[in-house]
């Protein structure tokens, strides 16, 4: 059949050519208006015919045109299409294509389909690969920071292979997943390498996201991988290499001398309540316990544990088009050593994208992505001791090797007899995994208005992690050793079947689709552990005691019907409606199904006659969208009352109450209203402003229970959170001359969230007794704790605020208390920022490019939990302490009103949770500076290259913040052990310096 189609096509083509037997050849060359470099792969066609050609690598083209005058249409993605009048037989036609700054006619991949930019009716931001690639990372989230209005990106960990947390337009769910839905090449989920990414589309309002229904509450990020753009095979190679150093922020620990002086505070002659205190430091006693010689022992534990570490990234790709086949093949290798010793990550990724055109009607797409990764993680306790061990203790023995330390080691000054360097040397926390994605796409044009589109993915991954501690280590596994292994098998299938239609009648155009979708996946875990290993071997087979096994699995099923209709009139008025119906296995039989409609509209005013050819306004569009999305992503069976069977007593299986029943548990639904305006001025400045209001109803919340019911929480739908905000994106070409160009991108997003409809206040208390309150009129993640008022000038005791309430329960005054239990627990600000955004500038002078990206975040609170250890008023005098920026002003005696730190002699409860450790999390960071040089083409050609560029980049150059602790970027995900906005000893973020060379050939 295909052969037939081919034959028909060929005949038709032949026929066409014959029809123009009177034709004459024309030749010419297409160059970029900007740098006068030839552009290859440009489509040159004769207007009104199907006759066309493509430019070669040197930009030249030739094709036949009818005798006499005709018009050539010259078009290329990213450039403004140009029409040129030619006469048959003309040669050496010079065409300059201008870059399309507005990219109005770019095709944007949205939801299950794609649209032209000017047809969009909803808030959508596109980030092209050239704006992403200034940052080299293994994670696309890190690359997006500061580049999309409304997108908050938090790099809370600098561990090798760590990925950023992303929030779109604030946080609208609490215990359900808050991360935007990733869609790779039109299919939900999926694996890819950042080097293979062509563009990122961020869908922000319900007009676009409602199509993803119950998975789209947190927005949708669409990743499109590269495909061939031009005929001949093109190669691209990129080599990046550099190094990283740990950024401790203000977490600078005391050195030997500072610690020595600080310890003297313990020797103040002060016993609380005693009549004969002198309040003098008893130096004689001090020197007895701390001889002066201690000061000669100065070891920087964090410096010994964190070293600068190399990073490499190699990328090679080939792409091209033939009549039948479009193909792209990309290979990437990424390797980073962690700054914390004995940590690393490496990953290799292979991608093949191909679309085979069986006929004019039938395209089949086969995309495959293979990746494998491995790395070494770390043990939290090792990092903990790297900060807390005393500067007087030498980590090394006489041979320069990390020394073995236990409780019999003489002279050890640190709190615990642990040398983390020795433990690290004798342990292994490695992981490895591979991942395969195969996408099959079928596009069959049934008639000229109806297409059947099927996209399907099969994915599977296997991951294995291991923790091994040698019998040689000090501590709990000394002499026995320990090993555990965990294997994770994850597999699933996604299938979407759509019928797409497209009609045009005069000024009216209507298109859309209907279809169904199915998702199913399963994760299976299994593992084992044991002790009693012989020295040197580290497999489960050699454990001799305390063997344990574990294994369980989770399953996920979602099935859906979906539809969309778009209508436009005269290319000025656009209306779009969509509806999705989801069935989820996560809810009880009565609540399994939910519907998610949306409607959106736009008026492209600049296409009206009164604005046509306006010299100031070249684009003006007003948009509005209204719709619903939902969330069900809370894991299976949350509505059931459950007993967990994972324990044993006296070697018999035990069942433990695990979850409270809630048969009424249902979808969280988010009503989204968005209004936006897009303005293009002078063909240079693009301004996009969006205002939105998103009401998330029936919040899926793990509602805190009184602990006396035997459960911490119960899954429930409680309350509403309203996110209101405005986001502004400006991109402007400030200066543009032949040799010099300066452009600026600026994004900012103000977001405000308010809770309402909560039956009664919900207080969630996490580790360390750090609480957050959910109350009507309050914010999400609002810290709830006693207010720190400093030090009692008379006693040196810590002081908190105690509010005095009248009989109606209103606070009418306050007093100070040094009794922590008496202090009033109160709202102390939210972990979520008031605004955040990015300010990025790029400059080009001739072949030199400089790009500076910055990111800012304002108005959130971060609880710096490690201060509990590192600013502990000598409550535990054997932990190293933080260097306070202004020096510690420890209370010296009655009447000391200048003291900021309590007396070590009277510090009861001073390290308990209070606003003492709650800090302003605002920051401004110079995220990235990238400087590059593109070799002149002539030079490149000499080494058989089409283009070569060389660049240096510096990431996380500087962060400006008042935050006391490691950097203020702190997790905002409320799962597991982490309370949002609580910073603990974490893997520090990295400064990164890279040299990158790009080759095109």
């Amino acid at each position, binding site marked *: *059949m*295909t052969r037939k189609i081919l034959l028909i096509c060929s005949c038709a083509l032949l026929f066409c050519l014959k029809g123009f037997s009177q034709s004459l050849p024309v030749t010419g060359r297409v160059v970029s208006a900007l740098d006068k470099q030839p552009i290859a792969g440009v489509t040159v066609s004769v207007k009104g015919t199907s006759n066309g050609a493509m430019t070669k690598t040197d930009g030249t083209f030739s094709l036949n045109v009818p005798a006499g005058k005709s018009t050539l249409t010259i078009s290329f993605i990213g450039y403004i299409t140009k029409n040129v009048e030619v006469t048959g037989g003309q040669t050496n036609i010079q065409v300059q294509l201008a870059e399309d700054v507005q990219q109005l006619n770019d095709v944007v991949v949205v939801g299950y389909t794609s649209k032209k930019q000017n047809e969009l009716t909803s808030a959508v931001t596109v980030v092209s690969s050239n704006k992403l690639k200034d940052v080299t990372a293994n994670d696309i989230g890190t690359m997006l920071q500061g580049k999309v209005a409304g997108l908050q990106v938090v790099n809370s960990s600098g561990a090798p292979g760590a990925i950023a947390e992303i929030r779109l337009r604030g946080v609208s769910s609490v215990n359900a997943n808050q991360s935007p839905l990733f869609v790779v090449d039109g299919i939900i989920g999926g694996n890819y390498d950042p080097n293979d990414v062509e563009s990122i589309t961020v869908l922000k309002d319900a007009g676009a996201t409602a199509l993803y229904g119950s998975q789209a509450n947190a927005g949708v990020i669409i990743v499109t991988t590269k495909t061939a753009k031009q005929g001949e095979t093109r190669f691209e190679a990129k080599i990046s290499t550099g190094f990283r150093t740990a950024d401790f922020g203000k977490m600078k620990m005391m050195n030997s001398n500072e610690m020595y002086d600080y310890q003297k505070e313990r*020797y103040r002659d002060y*016993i609380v309540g005693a009549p004969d205190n002198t309040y003098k430091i008893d130096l004689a006693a*001090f020197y*007895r*316990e701390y001889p002066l010689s201690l000061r000669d022992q100065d070891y920087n534990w964090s410096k010994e544990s964190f070293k600068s570490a190399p990073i490499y990234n190699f990328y090679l790709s080939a792409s091209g088009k033939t009549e039948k086949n479009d193909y792209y093949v990309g290979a990437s290798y990424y390797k980073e050593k962690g700054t914390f010793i004995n940590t690393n990550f490496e990953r290799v990724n292979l991608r093949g994208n191909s679309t085979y055109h069986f006929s004019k009607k*039938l395209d089949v797409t086969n995309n495959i992505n293979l990746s494998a990764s491995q790395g070494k993680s770390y043990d939290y306790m090792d990092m903990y001791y790297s900060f807390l061990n005393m500067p007087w203790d030498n980590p090394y023995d006489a041979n320069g090797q990390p020394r073995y330390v236990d*409780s*019999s080691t003489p002279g050890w000054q640190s*709190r615990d007899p642990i040398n983390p360097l020795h433990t690290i040397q004798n342990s292994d926390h490695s992981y490895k995994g591979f991942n395969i994605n195969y996408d099959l796409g*079928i596009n*069959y044009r049934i008639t000229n208005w109806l297409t059947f589109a099927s996209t*399907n993915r099969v994915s599977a991954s296997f991951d294995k992690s291991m923790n091994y501690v040698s019998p040689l280590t000090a*501590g709990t*596994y000394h002499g026995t050793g320990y090993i555990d292994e965990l294997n994770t098998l994850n597999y699933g299938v996604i*299938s979407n*079947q759509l019928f797409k239609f497209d009609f045009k009648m005069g000024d009216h155009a209507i298109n859309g689709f209907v279809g169904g979708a*199915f998702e*199913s996946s399963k994760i299976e875990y299994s593992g084992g552990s044991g002790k009693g290993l012989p020295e040197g071997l580290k497999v489960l087979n050699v454990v001799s005691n*305390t063997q344990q096994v574990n294994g369980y699995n989770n399953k*996920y*099923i979602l099935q859906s019907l979906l539809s969309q209709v778009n209508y436009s009139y005269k290319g000025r008025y656009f209306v779009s409606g969509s509806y999705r119906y989801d069935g*989820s*296995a*996560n809810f009880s*039989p009565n609540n399994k199904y939910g519907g998610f409609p949306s409607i959106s509209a736009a008026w492209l005013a600049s296409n009206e006659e009164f604005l046509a050819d306006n010299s100031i306004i070249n684009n003006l569009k007003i948009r509005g969208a209204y719709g619903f999305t939902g969330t069900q992503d809370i894991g299976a*069976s949350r509505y059931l009352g*459950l*007993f967990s069977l*994972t*324990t044993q*007593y*006296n*070697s018999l299986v*035990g*069942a*433990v*109450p*695990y979850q409270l029943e809630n048969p009424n548990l249902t979808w969280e639904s988010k009503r989204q209203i968005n209004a936006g305006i897009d303005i293009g001025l002078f063909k240079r400045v693009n301004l996009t402003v969006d205002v939105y209001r998103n009401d998330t109803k029936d919040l899926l919340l793990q509602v805190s*229970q*009184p*602990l*006396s*019911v*035997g*459960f911490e929480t119960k899954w429930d739908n409680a309350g509403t959170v309203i996110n209101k905000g405005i986001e502004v994106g400006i991109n402007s070409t400030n200066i543009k001359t032949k040799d010099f160009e300066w452009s600026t991108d600026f994004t900012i997003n103000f977001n405000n969230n308010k809770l309402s409809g909560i039956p009664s206040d919900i*207080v969630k*208390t*996490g580790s360390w*007794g750090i609480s957050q309150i959910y109350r009507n009129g309050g914010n999400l993640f609002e810290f709830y704790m006693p207010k720190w008022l400093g030090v009692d000038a008379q006693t040196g005791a810590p002081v908190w605020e105690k509010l005095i309430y009248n009989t109606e329960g209103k606070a009418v005054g306050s007093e100070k208390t040094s009794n*922590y*239990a008496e202090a009033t627990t109160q709202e102390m600000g939210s972990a979520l920022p008031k605004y955040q955004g990015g300010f990025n500038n790029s400059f080009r002078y001739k072949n030199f490019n400089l790009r500076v990206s910055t990111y800012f975040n304002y108005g959130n609170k971060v609880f710096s939990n490690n201060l509990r250890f590192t600013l502990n008023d000598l*409550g535990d005098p*054997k932990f190293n302490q933080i260097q306070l920026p202004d020096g510690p002003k420890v209370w010296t005696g009655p009447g000391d009103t200048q003291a900021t730190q309590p*007396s070590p002699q009277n*510090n009861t409860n001073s390290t*308990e949770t209070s606003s003492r450790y709650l800090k302003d999390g605002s920051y401004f960071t110079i995220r990235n500076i990238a400087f590059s040089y593109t070799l002149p083409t002539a030079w490149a050609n000499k080494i058989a290259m089409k283009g070569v560029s060389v660049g240096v980049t510096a990431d996380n150059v500087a962060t400006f913040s008042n935050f006391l602790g490691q950097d203020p970027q702190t997790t905002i995900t409320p799962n597991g*052990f*982490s309370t949002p906005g609580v910073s603990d000893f974490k893997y520090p973020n990295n400064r990164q310096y890279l040299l990158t060379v790009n080759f095109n050939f």
Partner: protein
Amino acid sequence: MKKKIFTIITLVLVAASSCKNLNVNPSDAISTGTIVTTTDGLTNALNGAYALFKDHIEFNGLVDGNNMYLRQFYHLSDFASDDIVCGQATTDPLFYSFNLGHSPAQGNTRYYWYVSYKIITGVNTVISAVEKSGKTDAATNQLLGECYFLRAFCHFNLVRLFAKPYSVDPNASGIILRTNLTDPAKKARSTVKEVYDSVIADSEKAAGLMTWRGPQYASQAAAWSLLARVNLYKEDNAKAIEWSTKVIGSGKFTLATNETFPALFANATTASETIFCVAFTAVDDYGKFGSIASMIYSDGNSGWGEEFASSSLRAAMAPHPEDVRWLYIIPLKDGNGVVQKKNGIEVYYISKFSFQGGLPNLSSPIMFRIAELYLIRAEAEAKMGNTGAALDDVDMIRKNRNLEGSLYNKVVPAGKSALDVVLEEKRIEMAFEGHRTYDVFRNKRTLNKAYWGYHLAGVKETDIDLSKTPAGYPNITVPYTNPRTIYYLPIDEILSNPLATQNP
């Protein structure tokens, strides 16, 4: 070709759009509905309740080695006593038991409260299911009895830690009683008396239902023992004598002898004294980060070894170096036989929670053993004025502790009361087993902590002069009227349950 493609497409479509079963069941949990309708399920739920005494279960999203019912059961009581001295200041909340810097936010009371009520909820689920089923066979009765026992045991341990002693104020705020599943989540505290009434009712019911299936499980004797203990605390001395006599008289349990006592705690599940212990097996050896022993014993690597037998307790034992009970106090000596110091405090490790299977961190902690019953009876007899009977029971213990030569023989030493003698003996016999603070405060006595240790606010190594008695420090003595003889209710309960009032 085209047909083939269409066939494939059609197949894919059909496969994709066919309605799949949208029900997913968890792989390692079963629904409460299922568990209560099968005998197997109820047995598993009861095993789970026992397991919670030893497991580290997730709390605040984290499995923390510090969090274990029994670890905190001992820390919260014995670290507040005069038997254990703190050798190192710490930010760990266990420090608050030493220095009385209690806080509603301290992690150990929060977990202890939580897991206690999880045990109670588990057994309440079984009780409600069994009573609905109407079954009364022996196996079901045993199951039901054990559930009642565990509920009583947990409620009683809570009321001891979080409420004033019955003898001090029976009408004081007790704890929140959870005796059925249908009560609202928000509930006020019952009075101490109401809690005791409920504990006694549950225990009596339990005693009537159970027989014996090994010391790893609750039994009729365990319920009688609990009744003896509760009645003693309630100062219903006649009842205390009655119940303890029942246990002693059952003949099932005998005092360990001079020879067997040293191996008692390492072999609790087979020891002649054990009435009820929580069984730990080899897989429950939590090592340094989560065992009971790791704070009070270390072989150099096995534990933190930061808390030791106090000089006060050692002074009380000093007259009798031959006492076999010394064997559970292990001085850390250097090569010259000199006792080592940690931060100025002499290191005397405690080994009552070690050496099951020879492992330094493994034991099956004993909740009730026969020696306590003799001492309960002795105390009750002493309070009823039956000095001779009281001292006979004390001598019964001493005979088996290598003190045959130092018996009281019904004669109270000069300057002491019979109660003094009983309490002194109990202090030594039951040391580190979670009794001392309750015994002091419920008898309206004062705890004297005038010895060197880091319970003294701001003390440092150079202050320590072991030849002198420390003076001038706050909280050096703790009278029973000190509000910090009990703990604050956890912050979670107070913030989520406005009906629960905080302790002063």
